[in-house]
């Protein structure tokens, strides 16, 4: 039985409809929800938590229908985007708050507090007020509070969005470790694609209020089922070329590209889009791969790899090359496309 199950849930807003949403989170799973801002990700968390009731469909928790459970009964913890720490309480009081609310015995409170502060490395700041803490410390206290009472599941709404890049990376590892050690069910919402992909066991990609694809990060990355998903997963984003499928089904003819040989079955004829990830465009010629000349526009040296922005005809193409590559602006570069990693979409945007 899954920990959280959402079946055909729909929520109507004046300008926007959320759903139907179908989603199932297993016990002990780290489930990520990714989507651009304002697409309903936070609303899904509220549906799970019980702050919102669905207009249609249902939310089931460990087999029990959420329509008959109010928020407190559902036994779900949440970490909010703005943390919502109690400003007049110390770190310690914040963390043990849920336990006190449930009238837990003193010994249990002490035990949980010890455990939580140990894992999150906050023992040395328990006596401080939130105002005296740094952003990262506040984050950990908020996590500690959500963690203190062993709840059925933890919901996190962009909990580390406001931190520095470096701190975010560190917190990611902490969160993952926390989750695994406790075998807790986590539902993690973020608009940062890299973050969600790095940290989740499975990911749901939300576009325009609907779930476009659910799968492991690997699945979603290497086989996006539609152009919209392919557009938002991957940094830098996938390159797209419009064109037609040859009638024979053996080639794709894209603008400015040579005929691209297609491996395996595909559409015969019709319009479509070819998607190629920046790392699947290689410098120089390579056996069995079609190659083309591009004109270098700019080069972004990122240390362990380099992003090259180049013109193919009128279009800008992004190429990810390993290591440090020095190129002159305006120079011509020959690149080849890895035929084994092409993504083809029909004119409706569906994967072929």
């Amino acid at each position: 039985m899954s920990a959280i199950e959402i079946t055909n849930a729909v929520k109507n807003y004046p300008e926007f409809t959320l759903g139907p949403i179908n989603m199932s989170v297993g016990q002990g799973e780290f489930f990520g929800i990714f989507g651009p801002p304002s697409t309903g990700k936070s609303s899904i968390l509220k549906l799970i938590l019980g702050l919102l009731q669905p207009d249609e469909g249902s939310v089931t928790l460990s087999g029990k229908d959420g329509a008959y459970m109010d928020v407190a009964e559902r036994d779900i913890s949440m970490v909010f985007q703005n943390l919502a720490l109690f400003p007049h309480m110390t770190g310690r009081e914040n963390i043990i708050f849920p336990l006190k609310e449930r009238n837990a015995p003193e010994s249990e409170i002490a035990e949980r507090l010890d455990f939580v502060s140990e894992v999150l490395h906050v023992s040395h700041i328990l006596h401080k007020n939130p105002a005296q803490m740094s952003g990262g410390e506040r984050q950990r206290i908020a996590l500690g509070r959500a963690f203190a009472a062993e709840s059925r599941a933890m919901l996190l709404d962009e909990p580390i969005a406001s931190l520095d890049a470096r701190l975010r990376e560190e917190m990611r590892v902490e969160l993952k470790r926390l989750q695994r050690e406790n075998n807790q069910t986590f539902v993690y919402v973020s608009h940062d694609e890299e973050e969600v992909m790095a940290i989740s066991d499975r990911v749901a990609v939300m576009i325009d209020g609907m779930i476009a694809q659910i799968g492991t990060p690997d699945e979603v990355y290497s086989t996006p089922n539609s152009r919209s998903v392919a557009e938002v997963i991957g940094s830098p984003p996938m390159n797209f070329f419009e064109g037609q499928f040859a009638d024979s089904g053996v080639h794709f003819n894209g603008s400015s590209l040579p005929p691209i040989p297609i491996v395996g079955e595909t559409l015969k004829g019709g319009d479509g889009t070819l998607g190629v990830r920046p790392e699947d465009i290689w410098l120089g010629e390579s056996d069995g791969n079609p190659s083309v000349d591009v004109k270098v526009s700019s080069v972004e040296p990122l240390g362990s790899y380099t992003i090259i922005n180049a013109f193919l005809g009128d279009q800008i193409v992004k190429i990810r090359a390993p290591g440090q590559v020095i190129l002159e602006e305006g120079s011509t570069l020959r690149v080849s496309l890895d035929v084994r990693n092409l993504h083809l979409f029909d004119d409706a945007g569906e994967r072929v």
Partner: protein
Amino acid sequence: MSSIQIQNVTKRFGDFTAVDEISIDIEEGEFVALLGPSGCGKTTTMNMIAGLEDVSEGVIKFDGQDLSHVRMQDRNIGFVFQNYAIFTHLSVYKNLSYGLEVKKVEKPEIERRVKAMADRMSISHRLHQPAASLSVNEMQKLAIGRSAIVEPRIFLLDEPLSNLDAGFRAYMRAELKVLQHEFGQTMIYVTHDQIEAMSLADKIAIIDQGKLMQYGAPLDIYNDPQNRFVANFVGSPRMNLVDGELREEQGALRLMLHGGAEIPLAGQVKADFTSDSKVHSGSFGIRPQDIYFGDKRADHDIKMLGKVEVLERVGPKRLAYLQVQETMFLAFDEQAQLNVGDDVPFYLPSEASMAFDLDSGRRLGGQ
């Protein structure tokens, strides 16, 4: 277009020293990033260049000319605020024309230039709409256009991409680069995101707690960090930096890590650590992409044994977190053959490793 000389500039707020004797030389037309964690003093430094703050000590010059008595209105600087500071009560057109209007430029000229800039920034279709109705992305373009239209000699940008969503940020990075080349201005860019700094800047000034840590071209800083802070801050994913005490036993030099493990030093990195006899605590640095698995490749490469704790997908790559007692090493799982829980041997190539003095943070050895 101006060159900028920042000479021993210090800024104090009461007892607190926000900026501590920073000196940077910026050439005409250069794109310089001020990079550092929140609160490091980078924004304060930029505010001083703009004239928003006074300098406590030291001097800032444009083209050799001392600015101490020049008001911010008269410095002819383009400034893009982090939250854009768009004139929300005016239309997009009026926002763009403001800088020209206050200079009493003629109406037809204003119209021509506003239209051209709106085209350039792809917001022509919004020209007569209230600026408050724009999306965040459009607002950012408007903020840039508004400053650029008066053709300032210097352009200052305060974390301009931090409010944008990830997809648009990648796009704007490329756009900014193109813009800077077109306008040819000297640009100074404040950010805490080292990816942005690396991809955009000609030179990066890394600042921590008010002090300048290193100033140079992105790849120079990446390949040759002068201190531990820089090595830790620049590079994605971050460099492995493990700290410990140096101990010599029977001719062999080991780094006893604080987490309990130890690294037997050899080759170039051993020479680096021994180059300064006063150093007792050190930091061992190795980039994730340099760690390898399988067979030993060079004599002096250091073998370690670790347990795979976490596997993360980062773009097209898989990142493995290897636990050695209490210490964690990051490495790339190129062949995708690791599983969580595996005990694997891995190698640290001594040529690619870096040595740092833990007390001062200074780089030992190096080119």
